[in-house]
């Protein structure tokens, strides 16, 4: 509008100027001159109006074209926004479901795995230690009892042998007694012989005495007979003693022989058994050693299994991270749904607060690592090195 006024004014002024010039440099009267001036001015204004109108029409035409283009573009953008929202609405729940499933799957499988390891460890523990100790204990006891019994048998045999030798000694002593008996028997015979002689002399003297000696001769005869029977008894004792000596002698010889052989046998048997026992003992000892080694390696396996179970703690962190991812996706989905409720024309970019959403995600995290990675992702850096893993940090209050 202002342009039009200025142009009109300019046209007027030009007209007036031309009129003036005409007045000045030609023989036109003032009245005619003024008339010309007015006409020129009006003409100028008229021309300006026509030109402007034409220009206006051109602009309107152009604007119409531009508006049509503009409307098409807006429609395209609107469709694009709706399609994009649709896509996100469809995909986010799917992704969320996948995260939930993998989280649950991991948790379950790790629990099963962990339990299996615990059972393995228990199995090795109970089987190894106690069983072996019980077996060893039993074998040890068995061995000790057998050894004790065999020792007592050997002792018994030994003492039997000793008794045998003692018996032999006694028998030898007995033969000394019989020798004495024999001497005594000989003495009896000698005495009897003497008495016999004496009685013979007495009989002779009795015969010489005649009648008076007859009584005495009878006594002498009786004495002679007694002497004779004593002599016989003495001879018989000697004979018996001789027999006893003979039997004792042969018995003694046999006993001595057996005794010596027995002694030898007992000694060699004892040695044999001793050797067998030593073999068994050394076998048992190496068995015990192997047990100890086995026990040690079992314990090692158990502690390694324990380390594995400890390492399975990672599942807890994974679960938490996945849970947070799920909630983050939920927030995103909710935001989209909320926006979809509003018609496109009424929507306001300010109503989506990216900063606030990111902040909300930050408060959700439970591990320092999550926060670090979030921030480095937001600022566009490469994935940050997680060397600020604060695991195993203990503080007392």
């Amino acid at each position, binding site marked *: 509008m202002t342009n039009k006024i200025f142009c009109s004014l300019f046209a007027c002024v030009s007209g007036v100027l031309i009129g003036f010039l005409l007045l000045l440099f030609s023989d036109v009267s003032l009245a005619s001159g003024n008339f010309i001036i007015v006409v020129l001015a009006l003409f100028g204004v008229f021309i300006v109006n026509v030109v402007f109108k034409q220009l206006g029409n051109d602009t309107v035409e152009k604007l119409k074209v531009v508006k049509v283009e503009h409307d098409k573009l807006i429609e395209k953008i609107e469709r694009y926004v709706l399609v994009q929202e649709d896509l996100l609405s469809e995909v986010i729940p799917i992704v969320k479901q996948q995260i939930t499933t993998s989280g649950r799957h991991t*948790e379950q499988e*790790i*629990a099963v795995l*962990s*339990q299996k390891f*615990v059972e393995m*460890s228990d199995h090795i523990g109970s089987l190894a230690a106690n069983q072996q100790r019980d077996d060893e204990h039993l074998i040890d006891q068995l061995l000790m009892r057998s050894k004790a019994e065999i020792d007592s048998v050997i002792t018994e045999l030994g003492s039997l042998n000793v008794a045998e030798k003692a018996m032999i000694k006694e028998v030898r002593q007995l033969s000394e007694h019989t020798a004495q008996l024999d001497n005594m028997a000989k003495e009896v015979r000698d005495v009897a012989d003497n008495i016999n002689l004496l009685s013979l002399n007495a009989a002779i003297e009795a015969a010489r005495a005649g009648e008076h000696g007859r009584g005495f001769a009878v006594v002498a005869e009786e004495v002679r007979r007694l002497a004779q029977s004593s002599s016989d008894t003495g001879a018989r004792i000697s004979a018996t003693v001789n027999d006893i000596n003979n039997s004792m002698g042969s018995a003694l010889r046999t006993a001595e022989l057996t005794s010596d052989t027995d002694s030898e046998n007992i000694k060699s048997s004892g040695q044999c058994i001793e050797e067998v026992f030593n073999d068994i003992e050394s076998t048992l000892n190496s068995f015990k050693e192997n047990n100890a080694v086995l026990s040690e390696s079992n314990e090692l396996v158990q502690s390694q299994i*324990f380390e594995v*179970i*400890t390492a*399975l*703690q*990672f*599942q*807890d*962190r994974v*679960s*938490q991270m996945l849970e947070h991812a799920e909630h983050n996706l939920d927030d995103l989905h909710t935001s989209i749904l909320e926006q979809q409720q509003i018609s496109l024309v009424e929507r306001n970019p300010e109503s989506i607060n990216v900063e606030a959403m990111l902040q909300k995600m930050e408060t959700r995290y*439970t*591990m*320092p690592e999550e926060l670090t990675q979030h921030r480095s992702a937001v600022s566009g850096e490469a994935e940050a090195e997680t060397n600020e893993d*604060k*695991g*195993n*940090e*203990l*503080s*007392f*209050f």
Partner: protein
Amino acid sequence: MAKTIMIVDDSASIRQVVSLTLKGAGFDVIDAVDGVDALKKLNGVKIHLLITDVNMPNMDGITLVGEAKKLAAYKFTPMMMLTTEAGDDKKQAGRAAGAKAWLVKPFQPPMLLAAVSKLILP
């Protein structure tokens, strides 16, 4: 008489490791999956130490410590947190509720045993 320790955590693998560690050291172990379950199982049972996670469904660990401390039976029972959280504000909240120690997961068994031996009731 073996001493009893309660472990509260919603993760089975954590309960597994803690249980094995403590049982290996000669303790009896009761486990629970969250704060509500823990309170149910406590029910006057004598324990010498409570170990709990922070982030759990139904009732979190810090609330659990607060609630347990209100009960006469557990007023003097030592309690510690075992969690992935390492932030100072959370630690202060735990301390305020009555926890005596804070161990960040993942943990190594010797560290847990060190904490237990320092805190446990004689």
